[in-house]
């Protein structure tokens, strides 16, 4: 870092190009600069335009979500009609709004299902495929194919399996007669698990691809050394491979958490995220799409989602960037 700072090319143009991350411009290294005025302007624009877009469309709405969550605004009467009401939206959320705790619970179940079943299964497949046995590429393609499909399509494909009368599953189970059907997607005690299976169909392949790439870059000499020392395959994986794969394990952990919090499409496609499929994301969306959009209240739900997501995001970024600088 210090090495780079001393370079002539690093003449530190004001980074405040887009209006975020604002601070004083830095004219003090001026004499160092080999960059012409035109070059400086170019750099300003090259960084400024992307920064402006991200600021306006992502950062500003994020900040606005937080501010609006303390207000009662229904969108009528312009910004002047915004009234601050303190924490009332949050207390209403907890005390009055019935779908809130089911949604929170479903998000946590989603996360647990991914963490305990889908992600380990994907890692397991990666380890098996890493053995380079015959047909590996075909198996790999089969497992990873769902990753390119949209979750909306995945919802449709699995409806062909879960449908009460026409679906594959009930047909195989002989439960297609009226009154005898299993309502996989309609029963609030079943439907979350049914769509978690569909979601895992994709997640397993995703994790498999990422982990396999990590394993390929793993030095085989280490594992050979372990096996010469008499370690079984299982031992050599858990004692040697897994610890060395720590960076990629963390990437996969964070991806799992974030994908769980982002869960939306499958629940919304199935039944608009109602009746057993409530998630924080569907509550926010239904609040906007509904007849009476309560902006302050919807923002409060969004902030709950934000607070849960920010931890893993920051954890991930600090790690990624710290490694970067080493």
């Amino acid at each position, binding site marked *: 870092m210090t090495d780079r700072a001393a370079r002539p090319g690093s003449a530190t143009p004001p980074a405040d190009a887009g209006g975020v991350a604002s601070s004083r411009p830095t004219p003090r290294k001026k004499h160092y600069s080999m960059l012409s005025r035109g070059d400086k302007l170019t750099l300003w624009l090259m960084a400024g335009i992307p920064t402006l877009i991200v600021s306006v469309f992502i950062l500003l709405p994020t900040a606005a979500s937080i501010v609006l969550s303390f207000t009662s605004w229904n969108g009528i009467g312009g910004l002047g009609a915004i009234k601050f009401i303190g924490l009332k939206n949050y207390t209403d959320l907890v005390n009055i709004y019935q779908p809130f705790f089911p949604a929170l619970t479903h998000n946590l179940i989603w996360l647990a299902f991914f963490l305990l079943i889908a992600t380990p299964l994907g890692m397991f497949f990666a380890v098996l495929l890493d053995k380079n046995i015959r047909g590996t590429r075909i198996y790999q*393609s089969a497992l990873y194919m769902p990753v*390119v499909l949209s979750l909306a399509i995945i919802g*449709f494909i699995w409806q062909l399996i879960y449908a009460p009368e026409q679906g594959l599953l009930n047909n195989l189970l002989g439960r297609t007669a009226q009154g005898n059907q299993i309502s996989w997607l309609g029963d609030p005690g079943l439907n979350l698990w049914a769509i978690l299976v569909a979601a895992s169909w994709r997640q397993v392949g995703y994790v498999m691809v990422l982990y396999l790439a990590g394993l390929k870059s793993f030095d085989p000499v280490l594992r050979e050394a372990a096996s010469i020392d008499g370690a079984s395959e299982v031992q050599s994986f858990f004692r040697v491979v897994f610890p060395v794969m720590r960076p990629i394990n963390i990437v996969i952990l964070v991806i799992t958490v974030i994908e769980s919090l982002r869960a939306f499409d499958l629940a919304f496609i199935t039944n608009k995220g109602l009746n057993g499929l409530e998630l924080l994301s569907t509550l926010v969306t239904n609040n906007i799409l509904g007849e009476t959009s309560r902006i302050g209240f919807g923002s409060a739900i969004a902030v709950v989602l934000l607070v849960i997501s920010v931890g893993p995001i920051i954890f991930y970024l600090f790690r990624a*960037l710290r490694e970067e600088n080493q």
Partner: protein
Amino acid sequence: MSKIVSGTAARQKKLRRAGLQAFLITMSVIWLLPLLWAVYTSFRPYAETAKYGYVSIAGTYSLDNYSNSFTQGDLPKYFLNTVIILVPAVILVLFLSSMMAFTVSRYSWRFNLILLMVFSGANLLPPQVIITPLFRMFLVLPMFSPLSDNGVLYDQYVGITLIHVAFQMGFCTFVLSNYMKTIPKALNEAAVVDGASVWKTYWTIILPLTRPALAALATLQVTWIYNDFFWALVLMNHGARFPITSALNNLKGQFFTDNNLVAAGSVLVAIPTLIVFFALQKQFVSGLTLGSTKE
């Protein structure tokens, strides 16, 4: 003695390999089953599946469901909507994020770390976190014609393109700046000595060297933006303007209970991404892993 041991060991190893093969074949078949089932159903007329049951092989097979879902579902219109949103979005996001990555990776700024973090963080947020204020913003943010026929971003292709660009920029910048850091700094200095401007260095030296990463990202972005269901759902009003993935939900209503039509429609919409899967698998995978591992 040792010969006997190694003999049984070899046999054991062979047996284990066979078991592993059997297991992987079973899992692959299970994994392919949902899609194969959709394809199979899509070839059968509704009347016959109703008569013989879905789990049967009797009856005829045809492409009728495909032509029906294509015309009844108005699929060409929605495919076109997707193209209108997708093509400029992918070009813009790669162009802008390569410029951003160029400045943060080739010129050391005090803020480059912070900027990179903010960018990447923005990309990881669940979209629902920002959607409530974003929806209000889209109702008032002005956009000129012909890009907008109502004067604002709401309910316009350009609005959906822009939000894709903003949302994907973090990931692309992160990947590209990692990639650009592997290009020797000396190239920059040589260019400066030759009197090349910053823009020329970017456009004629660095960008061509970044081509492999750009190709991988383009593949990934085409798939992701094509697959997006959420933005248009909230930020568009006219169902007729929906991109194909968001329009699927409306198709479900039109096809009501005809699962065979739903199957054909799903397969049709999946085809572009399946082409990506078969033709550009390597690009796709390398794009995914570029973001998670460093060479």
